[in-house]
């Protein structure tokens, strides 16, 4: 008897389960058949961690403008963003460094680079004796990271920081140990300055550092710089500003010493002509007042997205982000895009298609 009742329960359970699973698909298919009105449109993106605070703010604000579009962004790192957008698991990717040729070849369709914001890398240091901001020339910075300058009272440092109290202590070099766009921008700068760096170390998201400690993430570098007297490290400007680290002023090609600031970063973008690919390196920009270690951060979007509804909402969002969205940048320590760049982006956004048909009819 007991066994029979078990069988009945099991059978009933199985029936409910199967019944349910059969009942579900039609209910789910309905909104897909008539999009846009019933269910909200969901867009997913993934990639760079550096612009994440800005992107999440933009997506949050955009929901107030268009409540029926839900955009979800996962900050998994630039490399992951590129991989996922190529694999098609997300609707758009994000990266701090442009894709290389090998990656562009892997993409099934044409992927477009869209610069969305500009960030910069600050050189942070911990020398309590210093009262005025430390001044650095590019050559000194390269030599510190190559391990050639090892003392804070090195003759070259004393020469450009006249009158400053430089201690006789060791320089403790800190670098990012996790692969990151920040490292890519920083090494790009060192490579542009010094052929020796380019040859010995190279430029990339992870490199073999000639000297020093490795710290994980911006918070790791900032933590080590703050706790180790005599330390020098590099962090994103937004992060350095929020945490109040001392930042060095760098000698720009124009000859002046520039501290990292939103104006300096915007000036760097003004000074570099954006080619048709819409990606360019901003390091060592020759424009006056330009901060030399600056970089665009890009979104990666397919030129042609087959899903009409998704493609339409994505291009609407991008249009909004490069216009109205830019006003949210400064409060989060990102530099807004210069007008010239926005004009070029407008042209590129009008090329976005779905099934060969242009999406934006804006003049």
């Amino acid at each position, binding site marked *: 008897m007991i066994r029979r009742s078990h069988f009945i329960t099991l059978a009933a359970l199985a029936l409910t389960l199967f019944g349910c699973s059969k009942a579900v698909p039609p209910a789910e298919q309905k909104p897909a058949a008539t999009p846009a009105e019933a269910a909200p449109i969901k867009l997913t993106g993934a990639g760079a961690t550096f612009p994440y605070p800005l992107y999440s703010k933009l997506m949050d604000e955009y929901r107030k403008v268009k409540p029926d579009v839900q955009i979800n962004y996962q900050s998994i790192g630039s490399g992951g963003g590129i991989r996922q957008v190529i694999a098609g698991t997300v609707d758009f990717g994000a990266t701090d460094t442009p894709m290389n040729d090998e990656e562009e070849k892997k993409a099934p369709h044409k992927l477009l680079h869209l610069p969305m914001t500009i960030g910069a890398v600050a050189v942070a240091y911990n020398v309590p004796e210093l009262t005025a901001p430390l001044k650095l020339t590019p050559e000194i910075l390269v030599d510190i990271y190559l391990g050639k300058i090892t003392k804070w009272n090195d003759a070259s440092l004393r020469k450009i920081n006249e009158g400053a109290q430089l201690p006789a202590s060791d320089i403790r070099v800190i670098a990012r140990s996790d692969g990151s766009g920040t490292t890519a921008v920083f090494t790009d700068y060192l490579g542009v300055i010094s052929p020796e760096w380019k040859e010995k170390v190279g430029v990339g*998201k992870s*490199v*073999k550092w000639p000297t020093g400690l490795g710290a994980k993430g911006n918070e790791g570098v900032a933590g080590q710089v703050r706790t180790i007297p005599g330390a020098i490290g590099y962090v994103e400007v937004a992060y350095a500003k929020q945490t109040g680290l001392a930042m060095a002023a760098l000698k720009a090609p124009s000859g002046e010493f520039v501290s990292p600031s939103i104006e300096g970063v915007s000036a760097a973008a003004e000074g570099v002509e954006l080619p048709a690919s819409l990606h360019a390196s901003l390091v060592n920009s020759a424009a006056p007042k330009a901060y030399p270690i600056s970089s665009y951060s890009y979104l990666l979007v397919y030129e042609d997205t087959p899903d009409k509804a998704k493609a339409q909402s994505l291009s609407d969002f991008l249009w909004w982000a490069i216009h109205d969205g830019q006003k949210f940048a400064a409060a989060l320590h990102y530099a807004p895009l210069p007008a010239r760049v926005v004009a070029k982006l407008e042209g590129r956004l009008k090329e976005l298609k779905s099934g060969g048909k242009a999406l934006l009819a804006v003049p």
Partner: protein
Amino acid sequence: MASQPQSLVRPRPKWLKPFGSEANWGDAIFRALTLLFGLCVVAILGGIALQMLKAYRLSLQAFGWGFITSNAWNPIQDQFGALPFIFGTVVSSLLALSLAVPISLGIAVFLTELCPAWLKNPVAFLIELLAAVPSVVYGLWGIFALAPWMREVVEPALASTLGFLPLFQGPSQGFGMLTGAVILAIMITPTISSVCREVLNAVPGTLREGSYALGATRWETLRTVILPFARSGLVGASILGLGRALGETMAITMVIGNRPEISSSLFAPSYTMASVIANEFTEATGDLYLSALAEIGFLLFIVTLLLNIIARALVWRVARLPEGGRL
């Protein structure tokens, strides 16, 4: 039951034979079900190994055995070698274990043998609370509290007393192998001590009473009766701790200095296998780079397996020793 006539018991179908010899259908199904669950573990392990084999094929072709013996790690030039990472993982874990085991054993002995009854539960509760602290919290604490203390107090003290050993030479930076091992030791102490406590609690009270009745002191009872009885369980507890130390990623990444170099000094920065995977996997773009990281993952698998086998062998050896009786 056995005296019942044969005709009343349904003969067992032949096809059920692989599922065991039970005459009862329910037992056979239960047996098959649990067998399935048991095989799940094997299937998952096999699946992981297979997947990793597929993922690291490229790196295996490029570097072969040299991958294990090379200490080059340069993503820009596509040069990869795992030796510094293997060294860092093994040394930091063993060092952590050697720091944590005496402390954990002390805690467990105190709690089971010497502690007044009213103090037992609060202390045990606090230790288990330590086990629940997320590793990223340990890591941040490591950066802001432990590392400066190691740099300013512990490392100079070690250098001035034991500085003649190569282990304690070089500049003290606070971030390095020693700090990594200390933070691992703190993290595995709750695990080891709570298992040790359970093991010591399981020693029969009659043994203690017998020993005291013979006139043995507390120390003698502990040394000659309780610890020998609990020996294999205590080694087992240490293995659990070792497993956690080998796989720990976040906290040690934040304090070990992340430099793929092999140094004789414990003050020097090092790097572990789990750390390099966590650090570089998300941004690894080249195929060979990804493949090399996958191979490191596979080697971590192997290292963990080897250390576990060695530890298991140790347990067997220890278990075969005569129990107690030596003074």
